[in-house]
């Protein structure tokens, strides 16, 4: 199962396209390296031309213009075009053989995640768990403005556009947690709209899905009071917790909120302290979010609520 201790917060390279852990990212990195080296070589050659032209008054030659300006670029561009189209077909093709589908819907400023829509349709949020080495069809939608789904370590980005459905296939090649972030400017808290993609071995993934299908764990003790607060304070108007309050879709599904590694769409470490801070002070932590700050909750209620939410895994 996913372990929340190893969140990507503060991990060097967690969002770097230069350290690929997916097929798309690896293919793009190959192109990147080739083009960077080639580009650097061309740059040096052109600058050498400038230097020589400056030093020696040989007079201009028409073949410089035709050779350097027409023939050479055409040859290089043709090669590049072939390579790049090849990679594109490899990356973008193969949608048919993806057995698993995950639907992600962008909201200001969080991600609604549905595993196997049409089939099981299990809802979660702000974390995308997928099996290693298996192509996964990612279906991308938006319910408000344009967002863009990007996990640089796994694959290139794809926009989420209201009124449209975009599809891409991603294959993680390594197990681990990779940071993703919204790449299309989407408003006030655009910088705070991140998530984590968690690649796990296929059998772990099956266990995860089974686990996720069930209702939220019931608890006793002071945390049980938190469940009452959740219902009394009206949280259920927007948030669903399977087995406690179902159906609401305005906010992230909280059935396993305590099991996520980060809070606030990949932004803060998940623990009771930050949960309590979040509930009391959302608008300060995430300006423009649709959830109001619940600063009026009493200290004990707030603690109980945070405790209860933290126990939902």
């Amino acid at each position, binding site marked *: 199962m996913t372990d929340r201790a190893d969140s990507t*917060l503060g*991990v*060097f*390279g967690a*969002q*770097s*396209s*230069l350290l690929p852990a997916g097929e798309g990212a690896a293919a793009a990195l190959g192109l*990147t390296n080739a*083009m960077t080296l080639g*580009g650097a070589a061309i*740059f040096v050659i*052109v*600058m050498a031309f*400038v230097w020589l*032209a*400056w030093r020696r*008054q040989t*007079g*201009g030659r028409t073949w*410089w*213009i035709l*050779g*350097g*300006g*027409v023939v050479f*670029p055409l040859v290089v*561009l043709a090669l*590049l*075009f072939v*390579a*790049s*189209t090849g990679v*594109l077909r490899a990356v973008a093709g193969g949608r048919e053989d993806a057995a698993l589908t995950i639907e992600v819907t962008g909201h*200001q400023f969080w991600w609604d995640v549905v595993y196997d829509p049409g089939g099981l349709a299990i809802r979660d949020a702000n974390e995308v768990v997928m099996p290693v080495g298996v192509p996964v069809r990612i279906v*991308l939608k938006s319910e*408000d*403005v*344009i967002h*863009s789904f990007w996990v*640089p370590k796994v*694959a*290139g*980005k*794809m926009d989420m*556009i*209201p*009124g*449209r459905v975009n599809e891409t296939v991603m294959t993680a090649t390594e197990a681990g947690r990779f940071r993703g*972030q*919204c*790449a*299309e*400017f*989407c408003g*006030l*808290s655009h*910088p705070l709209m991140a998530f984590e993609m968690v690649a796990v071995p296929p059998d772990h993934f099956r266990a995860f899905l089974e686990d996720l299908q069930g209702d939220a764990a019931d608890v006793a003790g002071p945390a049980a009071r938190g469940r009452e607060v959740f219902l009394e304070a009206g949280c259920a108007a927007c948030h669903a917790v399977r087995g406690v309050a179902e159906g609401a879709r305005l906010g992230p599904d909280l059935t396993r909120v305590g099991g996520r590694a980060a809070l606030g769409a990949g*932004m803060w470490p998940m623990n009771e302290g930050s949960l309590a801070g979040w509930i009391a002070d959302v608008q300060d932590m995430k*300006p423009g979010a649709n959830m109001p700050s619940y600063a009026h909750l009493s200290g004990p209620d707030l603690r109980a609520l945070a405790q209860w939410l933290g126990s939902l895994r």
Partner: protein
Amino acid sequence: MAVTDPETRTPYGGARKGEPGKTFDEIWQQPRGLRYWSAVSHQAVGKRFIVTGFCFFLIAGVLALLVRTQLIVPGNTFLDSETYNQVFTMHGTLMMFLFAIPILGGFAVYLIPMMLGARDLIFPRLGAFGYWCYLFGGIILMSSFLFDAAPDGGWFMYTPLSSNEYSPGAGPDFWLIGITFAEIASVATAVELIAAILCARAPGMSLTKMPIFAWYILIFAFMIAVGFPPLIIGSILLEAQRLLGLPFYDAALGGDPLLWQHLFWLFGHPEVYIIFLPAAGMVATMLPTFVGKPLFGYGFVVAAVISMGFISFGLWAHHMFATGLPILSLTLFSAASTMVAVPTGVQIFSFIATLAEARPRLTVPMHFILGFLFIFVLGGLTGVMLASVPFNLQAHDSYFVVAHLHYVLIGGMVFPLFGAFYYWAPLFTGRMMSEVLGRWVFWLMFTGFNLTFLLMHLTGMRGMPRRIATYPEGIGWDRLNLLSTLGSYILAAGVLLFVVDFIRHRRVGPHAGRNPWGAATLEWLYPLPNPNFNFHAIPAVRSREPLWDQPELTDRRAERIDGVLRGTADSRRETISCDPITGEPIQIARLPHPTWTPFFAALGLAVAFGALLASFYWISLAGLCFSVLVFLLWAWEPSDAGVLRPDGMGRTLPVDLADRRSHTHVVVVGLLLVLFALHASLIFGGLYLWNVVPDFAELTVRPLGLPLILAAGAALAMAVAGTVARRWALSERIGASGAMSGLTALLAAGTTAALGWAILPVSPFDTALGAVIWATVTFVAVLSAAAVLWGLFNLARDLTGATRPGQARHAFNLATYAKGLAAMALATAGLLLAFALTGGA
């Protein structure tokens, strides 16, 4: 100095006198004091554009420093998100719309007449009007800060983020209205530059003998005329959606947010080349001066610039690779995007070949040219990388793109521009800027620039997206951002030092004398500072490098150089106007003296736009009417067409020719080009929605067939009438041409009425396609209203004797306009008919 030619003192054919009793110098004197602002001459207007543009550059630069300061450490709280979003939005907006295009336009306005051998632009008032629109548009946009409503949706204003629902404040309105206003300025300036370059050159300056800068500006102007309309239309539609609720981009009613992106980038990508071309033209002009040899490969460069103009309109979608376009589109746009490397390469290698022609002088402008080569070539190479789709999907909207675009725009435009300031400052002020400080400016800017932006390539590859106010600590972006911020301060220090040097040189810089750089082009003909009239007599030009190849231009005092139009016949400002291709003089163009009409015309529009923002619609309408009234006054002036005057070199030329080569006709054709582009943008929108959202196209009620056929018939009749009217106007049948003006007005009104009738059943509020249909017909209606007004105006002028019998230039021009209008009306009716015939509810 006194007018010596006795011929000019004799009255000919009873033409009106301009300002009798004034000498040539006095007639060209800039007005002083407050009346300076009524000056419309290209020197005044060009300087205004340049100074205002530079002010916007400084403001936008300060905003950039705020951005960099916010990003200096992770999780910074220097600016809150809202302010940060406003700051980066305004940084991009000011740089792209209120700095880059206007300041380059300003240089063109200032330099083109001097380089081409004209005393002024051929439509000085149009340039002045453009400036005021630009200034007022800029003020409207900047005033949003005062109302705490600065736009914060990015310079690209993507919808639905910029729609009422997600941006309920006035921010997007300020942006859409202010920018559209400023764009009208750019388009006006562009049309004016096209006419000036084609119609007002020195005798003998054929197109192939034009200085290379004029070619660059000609293509620049054509690209603005065609490239800005998509955004103007896009913005008007978005504003209409916000104000009236027409669902152009609303996915719930069959609109498409991507339609905005298509229209925006149809403008936005050519925009990049629009910014690059004049700057490259500056390089191509300065470089030969310092090498001491002509530009190598002039013909190749001209061909490259023209092909760049065309290619740049075919690759807008590479800004949209991540939006889910089909693979075939991705592949095609990727190929088209890389193709632009060819004309760019041709220009770069032509510059390099020029360097090899002789030992170059390492002056300050030359530093900036070398800096341009270094930075721009790098930016071009990363541009080719971005054209590769799989790479683009990683790099898009990351700091890699931020790095790339600044390499291209700062390298391709700002560095040449600063070189140009050092190079042409003596023209503006008569003094030289400092060679020592200039080197400091260059090295500070060059070092600071590369430190800031070279690292950003890596920051982007490490996954940092653009437009984020804060970033988390420790994932690999901290140190890179710190260094980038430090670099930006160094860059800013360079700019600051430049400002200091500029202010300093105006008082203590050494006097420039005559042709201080040893340049080859005509703007350096006179001792500096340049006289207001540019040329006492306009010399004949036989070479592309007249100051190098024509000794008669340099072996005597400037005012003694032989040429046409010495002195002033009829005590009026005038210049020689030529055949667009050969450069042979065909007419004498009368130029306006200082006047307030452009100011008031723009002021009326400013009131109209400002009131629109404040939702005072009646005031808005009043401002618009006031503006139209001022335009009518502007155009009313009695015509001198038909008067014959000697040109001073043995020819007798007509004043204000009525002919298709006449400048007034060329400007009508330029205007039609803009209108066609506007109309085509609407048609594109309609066809796009019809094709992309077919379900809603089915739901859209069909227009009525019969009135559409009537409209098509009326439009055809208008085209025939236009053709006949043009012939009659040329054959000088004055009465008949007046009647044709009336008939044109009638047919235009008829066409519009029929189109309006046809779309009555279609609701503009139910589907986006219906809204586009209404917008298109409204557009044709507005153009028809203009035709009606124009026809009545011509009739009134004929009846009051304001036009000379036998000279029907005004009727000729209206007839051309009517033909263009007929083509647009016909296309509209035809497409609506096709839509009406394809089923539907």
